[in-house]
């Protein structure tokens, strides 16, 4: 795959295909992330289009102090926050519950209902498309702030430093959100793929 730096060079040279390639690369993730901030898909699409226009207009001034991807997602999040109503409410950092339900441990804190095995079975029992669908649904069910961190870290594959920069949150905050989010995705996989001893209670 062509690097972002190469696409940036072509983009600055006025290459429309470079723009299309960049859109192909990031538009889906941007839309998903925008949806976390705004009330509807139509509004999310507007935010994403506004972001692309801002990217084009900002190209000349972009100094490359962050990666192209980090820069684009930062613009997106700023626009989505301005547009969305979510940030006007006070949002707790994370839900307070434990990452594994307390009923699965005995009084001393040792597992009483240990994790079901599913890793080896996962790809035998569900094809890749169904596994991805399961994870997407589980991600959609996450509280918005957890979803944002999981999307950027685990789906988009950004570093924690870049995620903190894009979302303007601290490393510690990011870790808490990631912890809760990943824990719920694991539980969704266990519930669907495990043998039913643990996760489904």
């Amino acid at each position: 795959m062509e690097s972002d730096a190469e696409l940036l060079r072509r983009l600055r040279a006025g290459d429309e295909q470079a723009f299309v390639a960049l859109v192909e690369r990031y538009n889906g993730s941007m839309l998903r992330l925008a949806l976390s901030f705004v009330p509807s898909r139509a509004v999310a699409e507007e935010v994403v289009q506004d972001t692309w226009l801002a990217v084009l207009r900002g190209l000349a001034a972009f100094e490359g102090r962050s990666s192209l991807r980090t820069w684009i997602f930062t613009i997106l999040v700023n626009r989505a926050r301005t547009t969305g109503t979510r940030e006007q409410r006070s949002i707790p950092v994370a839900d307070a519950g434990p990452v594994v339900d307390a009923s699965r441990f005995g009084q001393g804190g040792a597992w009483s209902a240990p994790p079901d095995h599913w890793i080896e079975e996962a790809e035998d029992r569900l094809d890749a498309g169904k596994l991805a669908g399961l994870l997407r649904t589980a991600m959609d069910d996450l509280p918005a702030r957890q979803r944002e961190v999981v999307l950027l870290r685990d789906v988009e594959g950004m570093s924690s430093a870049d995620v903190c920069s894009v979302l303007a949150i601290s490393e510690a905050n990011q870790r808490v959100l990631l912890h809760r989010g990943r824990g719920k995705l694991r539980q969704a996989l266990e519930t669907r793929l495990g043998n039913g001893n643990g996760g489904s209670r």
Partner: protein
Amino acid sequence: MKLAFRRDLVCQQVVELVTDYLEGALRGSARRRFEKHLAGCPHCTEYLAQIRETIRLAGRVTPDDLNPQMREDLTDLYRRWRNEG
């Protein structure tokens, strides 16, 4: 999670430390206590492996394909921008 006591960690504490561990935020004695627990606990070892597998599977979730309408809109947007001068 604060590790207020020097005694061994229990499973319920270990699962809450998994992300700190994977992110390299557990250091020194906290990390040693975490690893000591894992060495003797197949269930927490399994849990950690499942979190790693969850991360790997999440990394294979691809964003939705660009729909034709949006591609067209964005190509138009590019051409309008080019003509802004």
